[in-house]
């Protein structure tokens, strides 16, 4: 906190903070206001006398109704949830075990392997989808949720592994040594001691992985074609932009409703999530 006169606090702290918040929250506000604004206001010319871009006097549910009545938004939402949950779980299990092994077990090339896994995370999805498309076709997985459930881990596992490696390294190795002297095998020491201690880290990795897979666009666009298999990001864009006509109201309603589950997950785990980022185990 800045010490001194009140005006210094305002100039150096509150004003920049407020500007930053406006900058950060404006897109969300825009998304929300567009969702509830009637079409008549949305497509009003900018120089009309009653043009009010930042608020509305006639909020409406019409766009949300349209979304659920005229498109299969509910199905997309369910698809996205299902795919994100399963692929997050797969990646979390693999990432936790791999991260534990890479940070705790001594074996040849452990360091190089850790770096190698991280490098695979850096391969851009826009390149990787080309060979993956081949594989998906060969295994006849195209246009099924499994196309995404099995391809998302290609970037989620390296991500989780890397995050968990760092977290495991921060746990004092004496905890595990003590457990092993106390009579636990390496496996039991991991299950009873290390994993419970690592719960904040596991939750952080899970939330990040869930958000990442919720938002994936390119894989979902390439591997899915029928409308009833699509995820929210792809479904909304492909069904609500027809030619050069943007259905702004339903588009924004879809974006708003699509971000609610992520927001719920975040706020639900926020306690653990924050402690996972800031603290680990000391003495």
């Amino acid at each position, binding site marked *: 906190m800045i010490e001194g006169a009140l005006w210094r606090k305002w100039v150096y702290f509150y004003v920049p903070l407020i500007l930053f918040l406006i900058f950060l929250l404006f897109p969300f506000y825009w998304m929300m206001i567009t969702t509830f604004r009637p079409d008549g206001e949305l497509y009003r010319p900018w120089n009309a006398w009653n043009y009010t871009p930042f608020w509305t006097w006639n909020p409406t549910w019409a766009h949300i109704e349209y979304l659920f009545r005229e498109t299969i938004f509910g199905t997309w939402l369910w698809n996205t949830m299902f795919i994100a949950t399963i692929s997050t779980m797969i990646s979390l299990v693999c990432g936790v075990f791999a991260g534990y092994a890479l940070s705790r077990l001594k074996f040849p090339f452990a360091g190089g392997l850790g770096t190698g896994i991280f490098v695979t995370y850096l391969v851009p999805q826009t390149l990787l989808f080309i060979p993956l498309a081949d594989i998906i076709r060969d295994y006849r997985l195209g246009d099924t949720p499994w196309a995404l459930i099995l391809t998302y881990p290609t970037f989620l596992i390296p991500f989780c592994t890397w995050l968990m490696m760092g977290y495991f390294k921060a746990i*004092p190795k*004496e*905890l595990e*040594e*003590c*457990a*092993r*002297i*106390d*009579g*636990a*095998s390496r496996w*039991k020491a991991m299950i*009873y*001691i290390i994993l*419970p*201690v690592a*719960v904040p880290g596991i939750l952080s990795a899970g939330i990040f992985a869930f958000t990442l897979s919720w938002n994936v666009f390119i894989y979902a666009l390439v591997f899915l074609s029928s409308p009833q298999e699509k995820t929210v990001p792809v479904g909304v864009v492909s069904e609500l932009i027809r030619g050069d006509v943007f259905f702004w109201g339903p588009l924004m309603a879809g974006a708003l409703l699509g971000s609610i589950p992520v927001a719920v997950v975040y706020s639900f785990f926020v306690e653990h999530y924050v402690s996972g980022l800031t603290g680990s*185990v000391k*003495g």
Partner: protein
Amino acid sequence: MAQVSIRQVNKKYDDFHAVKDVNLEIHDKEFLVLVGPSGCGKTTTLRMVAGLESITSGEILIGNTVVNELPPMDRDIAMVFQNYALYPHMSVFDNMAFGLKMRKFDKAEIAQRVKDAADILGIEQLLARKPRQLSGGQRQRVALGRAIVRHPQVFLFDEPLSNLDAKLRVQMRVELKKLHNRLGTTAIYVTHDQVEAMTLGDRVVVMKDGWVQQVGDPLELYNAPANRFVAGFIGSPAMNFAAVAVSERDGALWAENSGMRIKVPAAIAARMNSHRGRNATLGIRPEDIHLATPADPSDVCFDAVVEVVEQLGSEVLLDIKVGSDTMAAAVEPTLRAKIQEQLRLALNPARLHFFDAETETAI
């Protein structure tokens, strides 16, 4: 209860030889302390006994069993770590019960043992708390409790008091001693603090650079250090050393340098024949130097200039300049010395130590 034998044990990391040819016999019920500066191999030795480090060569026996290949859980030992290593997600009770649960003791037995240990350590009222709600001293007690509930054959302590503040450390030291007297379990204790080593150990092992320097009971190390390193490491304030030339005159050996000329007592002189006409290192503890009185023969006296005066109450610690050497002397608290004052001091010839100038071993 059991004895521990460490036979010709070596530990090599890729390019670092951490422990070299260590041979130790720890008797049943003995409290053995490994002491030395950091990096001397004492912790590595302890961890090899625990089974947390592999043994490069040699063998370790607990009881009469060679344990080289046994995993830690099968060695029937308990270890207390410097950072306590309490399981942060478990209550104090569960921390102490963990080892017993892993070994499938029944519930009543576990509750009884934890209660007994908690009684001994005075932590009954803390059993429901989590480690983060405890003070440093309480955590240390829980760590001890976790070790004693198991009734292991051997206790291993890895600098357990280093994280405590000075006052608590003294208190816990006394309690550890009492605990050992009460339980009688064989214990190996690693520390870098020579005061802990002297006060706790039945025997003390001094290590440096992976080598065992000397093994003996505390007074043996204090009175008859095997080499210059042990002499300097054991005792506080540390022993003074001065390079001297040894020469023979009037049928006696004399140790001389720029500030003093001391007659070597006959008992030591008999061992110093081969050092005649050569250099040696003279060692004298600060507490063996006193203000010269007429009763002191002139061949144990020397002149010194006071550089620093430290009043400790029970004694006065003087930093003095003797010729070109700086020394410390612990003298009577009644002495009112001033800085730059010239004093005539005497040393106790029976307490002189001599070390070979090259090998640094005691003569």
